[in-house]
């Protein structure tokens, strides 16, 4: 969890030389810089995408900027017209209900009740794919999708990024 390390370093004043970054920030940066070339044309059928804003990454971590980066990457990968945003969003997004150890703690019924808001919110977007950039979110969104009968596919971002990669070297 992004926040565990970020806040851990901060709260316990752990000395370190590195800079702690999110892969989402880097994806966006690399695409902007042209290091990664992506082409959404694979998405001819117009698969609709939405995403979950992981609390630990967004609200508690890097704030709206990383969430905007996430959207930027998804739009670049799947085509801007194929992204459907949720409401609430960014730093104000709901927690999926899988965080805070809820997936490990048991209390499955409570966890699913908790996730109902998230389910309704995601279902309302009508998206075919929900991008979950966090493993906890991924597991919880997968679970509530199945439990409440959702139709979407819950995935990480990298699968789609890989799909859209333009491999110049490969062409040569």
């Amino acid at each position, binding site marked *: 969890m992004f926040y565990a390390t970020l806040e851990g370093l901060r709260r316990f004043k752990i000395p370190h030389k590195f800079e702690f970054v999110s892969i989402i920030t880097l994806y966006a940066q690399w695409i902007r810089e042209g290091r990664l070339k992506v082409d959404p044309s694979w998405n001819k059928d117009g698969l609709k995408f939405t995403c979950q804003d992981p609390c630990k990454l967004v609200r508690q971590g890097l704030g*709206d900027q990383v969430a905007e980066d996430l959207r930027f990457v998804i739009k670049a990968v799947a085509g801007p017209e194929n992204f459907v945003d949720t*409401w*609430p969003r*960014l*730093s*104000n997004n709901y927690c999926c209900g899988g965080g805070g150890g809820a997936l490990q703690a048991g209390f499955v019924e409570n966890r699913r009740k908790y996730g109902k808001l998230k389910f309704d919110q995601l279902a309302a977007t009508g998206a075919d794919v929900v991008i979950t950039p966090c493993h906890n979110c991924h597991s919880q969104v997968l679970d509530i999708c199945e439990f409440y009968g959702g139709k979407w596919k819950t995935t990480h971002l990298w699968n789609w990024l890989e799909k859209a990669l333009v491999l110049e070297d490969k062409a040569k």
Partner: protein
Amino acid sequence: MSTPKGSVLVVGGGIAGVQAALDLADSGFYVHLVEKSSAIGGSMSQLDKTFPTNDCSACILSPKLVEAGRHLNINLLTLSEVLDVSGEPGNFTVRVKQNPRYVDPNKCIACGTCAQKCPKKVPNEFDLGLGKRKAIYLRYPQAVPLKYAIDPKACIYLNKPGRCGFCQKVCPTGAINFDEKPKELSLEVGTIILALGFKPFDPTSLDFTGYGKLNNVVTSMEFERLLSPSGPCMGHLERPSDKKEPKKIAWLQCIGSRDINRACHGYCSSVCCMYAIKQAVIAKEHAQSGDLASSIFYMDMRTHGKGFEAYYERAKEQGIEFHRARVHTVLPAENDNLTLRYTDTKGNVHEEEFELVVLSVGLETDPGVMKLCHELGIQLDQDNFISTTPFAPVATNRQGIYVCGAVCEPKDIPQSVMEASAAACKAQELLSKARWTETKKKEFPPERNVYAEPPRVGVFVCSCGINIASVVDVKEVTEYAKTLPGVVFAQNNLFTCSQDTINQMAEIIKRERLNRVVVASCTPRTHEPLFQETLREAGINKFLFEMANIRDQDSWVHQNWPEKATEKAKDLVRMAVAKVLGDEPLPYNQLPVTKKALVIGAGVAGMVSALSLADQGFPVCLVERKDRLGGHARKFFRTWQGQPMQEYLEELTKRIEDHPLVEIELGATVEEVSGSVGQFKTRLSNGKDVEHGVAIVAVGAESYKPRTGKWNYLYGKNPNVFTLLELDQRFIKADKALSGLNQAVFIHCVGSRVPERPYCSRVCCTHAIDQALKLKELNPDMDIFMLYRDIRTYGKREHLYQEAREKGIIFIRYDLEHLPVASEEDGNIVIEVEDQIIGERIRLHPDILVLASGVRPRDDVGELSKLFKCAMTQEGFLLEAHMKLRPVDFATDGVYLAGLCHYPKPVEETIAQAQAAASRAAMILSKDAVPAESITAQVNPMKCTGCGVCTRVCAYHAVAIDQNSGKAAVDTGLCKGCGACVAGCRSDAITLRNLGNEQLMAEVEAAMEG
């Protein structure tokens, strides 16, 4: 201080600035009124209605603005800003930058042709961007000055010279001047009053509100514009997304207030609860379909002002729903609707869909204002409002610079107006030696006696450029006018109001020996004073004048019917001529002034008023029914900001006692009052007669003591139960026993906000919390519980509430259905109360129980109000002339009120109101005579039956039945010329001068002759 200057700078042209300017200009000072926009009026001009009277904001504000705009002693500097101030109190030099208007105000006739032709549309900031305006624009339709201005940022010509310039081409008076440059002025003034106003909080940063993202989430200020008939949807309530009338609206309170997390505003904005209720009520009235549902989501409902609680109760009766719950996030729903999810006090979650959400945004200080204060060395507080102290509520840290209105704390209009007058009062105290030294006075030649002359009417028909002439055949109208009986002269002018035509008119009046004048042009509401002045300059009584409104009410509204508009113009001229023939010269009534004030009540309010007037050089008789000075304040420990009350009181008392101009009558009451403004005669109970020009009523109030009934709570039975003031006594005496207490309980709203006393006493929440904090100071380990209904620590007092919570004082809410219950166990107090949130009853064992009981009016106020012919509210407080704009005046001229007899209020507001009363009183006392209404009622005793209808319908008590004759008699000093008596009289015995039945009939009949 050397001889002070006799002029004052007022910065800010909102209601506070305008009020301060008018007070000063009317009491002998020359005022420079600096306003940064193109018109005065401020935020109030943007409002639709005002609470709690639902008065139309524009209707009540406009007359004041017009008065300020026309005042000989107010120099209106619009589009201007203060650069810096040097010098000292009494002698300041102020540099002012005046930005170009690009329209010559002396030439502009506000015909609007320029704006019609201007091709550039930009968002109208007056409508908060909801509507559009042109690059050349009037800030709003009733703007003062009613002169167009060019927005240099939007204007095509100014940005690309050579392009556009249409306005210049079409302006009929050649008023456009693109070459105008900014000017820098240097003003010499004695004092400065800052009335810099506020800015509504911008909720864009609060993402969870959805503002800026969801179309149908608007701020309350935007909603005012949506409601306003002059707003972007002309008063038809429409929501932004689809221009449909919303059927369900929610208000979210405390957006940008009482929020130290996201908005960084720890204070309460004080006005939002009331304006939200008002908007909900008005929206319901607006709703065409009649089935608008309104809900208000709040934390504490703060209806702490006069008439507010009753307004709140009425709103509940009208079906407005109040939810004590805050919503986390505004969620989008189908059809651009919005879903609100909220949790009730019991923890149940509800979801409800609304068609419009209004964010009740708070008030904050504009960054530009902060910058100016920084430049001027004016100290701001932690909330960026200008710092003041309770005992000097309108003084800034810089001597000679005063402040009023929302720039020192969020506050409502009456409070701002009160402070404006208070600031004017302080300015007068400082500059009293320089009164009338810089003012201008208009001189007129003696008037010709026209009584014996046959009527000689002159008619001036205005073309108003093409405003009238393009629709109405003005030549034909002029020729027609010549044929009317009594008319000996008629002329058509291009612009009748232009200076050369005015001069010419005066010459014509003399040359043609005219004794009646009719001008057919625009509206008398703006132009009658100008032409009347011309008559006076030509030696004719100004009341021998009528106007025919052939522009605003003819050519402008019948553009497609030129022939019929011409016919109508003839009718209007004929009507005006018929009317003017009946006009007689009226006296310019004056009432001589006895330059002495009577102040009744020597509490803080009375003493402050008396002292201020005495300091300005006016003798004062201060009457107190008790045998010592001080009143209610004797019982107070400290202000909520911690200043000891008794020290202040001692100093104030001493100053009063030592003042040579104050005569004190202790142990005396008012027995009999006669006379009217300028010349009252009052008999005191000690037999003394006082002759005075004005009176200030400051008789205070009492605290409610719950001796019996359900609010008793062992009061008077258990020795450890106190009222707030009784606890204050123990603080004053530094009672050591208090430090040893383990537990204290305060019960709020004891006997307040119930049908028997349906008002909030405004001060008790703050007072109780301050006491709780004092107890915590004495013993930090003491457990303190505050049992409350709504905490009403309005304005900056909210910090005190926060501090109390921070210090661990526990607040438990109760409601009228679940009152706390007190009992005694072995002589010890036990309180049971339900905590609504955890849903359990809490048992408390206080060592002391403090009852925050309210303020109640004195029983004998009714007698006094009758003596001065003043009104009272149902609760028994004294009723001011107008709840919004005349908060210290009574309807009876020359009588003012201050302090608790008006309504419960803390000492800083009492002092401000007392100073305001002194300012208003000085407006009279500073003159040898005060002007009175000329158009007054007149009784024909031959026809009068003495039946008394006229006396009963007169709101000003200006008509009375004469004891001797048994007939009605008018006190022209009191009469305002409304004519209610005339319409009420069955016998035609009472008439209004120049507005009698015969004259109106002549006008009506003339209308039908065509």
